[in-house]
């Protein structure tokens, strides 16, 4: 039954238009940040350890780990006086594979000194408008309008509005992520992008808490058409507090049987020199999905892992 191919791999050939659009989008992202005086940097993909996170698993690499995000190196650069930085890089997250997940994916991260999460929201709006000069596009039949201010909704409001449990009860019963995914997210970013803002403080590994309301972190996620596109926060610059959170998160990781990360001592030592800052991570593959009207992430990369 298996005859040799007599033509090229059509599944690859037919991706040409999306791959061309992807290249243009990435070029436009670079132009946007360069014009705004951000320095493009490259940091190592392979690290002694990542920032400990309960639900993100790194791929081991010869005793070290592939990065799950470039955040620690980016913040060390901020602490050394680089005031505006961006990076477009590969990240790896073990066993994350679905219609919107690839275990190796393309990440855009940008960081700015003397900046907070509110300014990052403004910058997200400007970036999207720069990428879509018409200021609206269609995703899977739904018109997404970019010209008006994006919706800003607190996590508590979103649970109130869309979930079968309130935020406090969802947290207390360990159902926050489940309800967020199944009941809240499908309503976010409908017709226009939404910022889901002010996450509970306990869900903010590296985020600063709100100065007047310490129960919430200055963190947001950007959603378009129900798809989570970016995660951002005002950076925690209190090294003591950061060490306390890392210690707790790392203990949870080890209790769950994860391979240990060393404490990122150089990062912690330099953190106190870091100015007030904010940073954001945006999934480029999902952005390309949205802007090229692709139903799955497989359609915007040449090779999903199953094709290798």
């Amino acid at each position, binding site marked *: 039954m298996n005859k040799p191919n007599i033509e090229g791999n059509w599944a690859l050939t037919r991706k040409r238009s999306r791959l061309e659009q992807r290249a243009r989008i990435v070029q436009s992202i670079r132009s946007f940040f360069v014009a705004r005086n951000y320095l493009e940097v490259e940091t190592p993909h392979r690290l002694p350890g990542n920032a400990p996170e309960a639900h993100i698993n790194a791929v081991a690499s010869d005793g070290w780990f592939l990065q799950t995000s470039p955040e620690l190196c980016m913040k060390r650069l901020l602490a050394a006086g680089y005031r505006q930085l961006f990076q477009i890089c590969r990240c790896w997250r073990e066993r994350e594979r679905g219609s919107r997940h690839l275990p190796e994916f393309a990440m855009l991260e940008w960081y700015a000194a003397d900046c907070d999460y509110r300014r990052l929201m403004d910058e997200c709006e400007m970036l999207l408008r720069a990428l879509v000069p018409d200021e609206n596009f269609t995703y899977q039949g739904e018109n997404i309008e970019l010209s008006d201010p994006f919706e800003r909704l607190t996590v508590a409001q979103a649970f109130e509005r869309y979930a079968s449990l309130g935020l406090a009860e969802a947290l207390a019963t360990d159902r926050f*992520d489940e309800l967020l995914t199944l009941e809240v*997210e499908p309503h976010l970013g409908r017709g226009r992008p939404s910022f889901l803002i002010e996450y509970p403080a306990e869900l903010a590994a590296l985020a600063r808490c709100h100065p007047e309301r310490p129960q919430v972190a200055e963190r947001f996620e950007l959603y378009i058409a129900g798809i989570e596109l970016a995660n951002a926060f005002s950076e925690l610059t209190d090294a003591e507090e950061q060490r306390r959170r890392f210690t707790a998160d790392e203990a949870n990781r080890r209790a769950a049987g994860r391979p240990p990360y060393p404490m990122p001592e150089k990062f912690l030592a330099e953190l106190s020199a870091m100015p007030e800052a904010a940073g954001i991570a945006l999934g480029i593959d999902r952005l390309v999905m949205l802007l090229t009207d692709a139903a799955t992430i497989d359609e915007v990369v040449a090779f999903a892992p199953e094709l290798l």
Partner: protein
Amino acid sequence: MLTCSDLRKGTKLMIDGEPHVIAQFDFTKPGKGQALYKCKLRNMITGALFDRTYRSGESFEPAALEERDMQYLYQDETGYVFMDQKTYEQTTLAEEALGDQKYFLVDNMEVKILLFGERGIGITLPNFVNLRVTQAEPWVKGDTAAGNNKPATVESGYTLQVPSFVEEGTLIQIDTRTGEYVTRVKE
């Protein structure tokens, strides 16, 4: 036992003592949150479809179904008839048990029949099948853009997307796991 990371389209699980197959599967998680495994399950005995979402940490009993090599003979009003070539024993599967797989059955094709007890409840097809295109828009000369596609119907009645250069009468290879076009077959 299976864990969530074993779940994918086609995985067979025992649920309440009956074999189920994952007909559709998606992994989803908030960037920093817990993973969820969204499954559309089909009861392999009744054909009933339903949705279920699992969280990390759950475990599953695999549905260990016996497989038997058989040959496809023909279709009649009772269903699709297969024969064990060693024992000449015949088994009939209902159309619902096959779903879209019925489009990829070719006379005398060798398949694996999945047995629950003595009863045939599903089949495993060869990964690729060759079928002839019976209906497709003609190739517009000058349409040289590689990657352009159009719908085509093959001899079994199945419709799929094919490259624009595929015409009526062309023999094409289809991946039976995805239902997608692979290549033209040289004759």
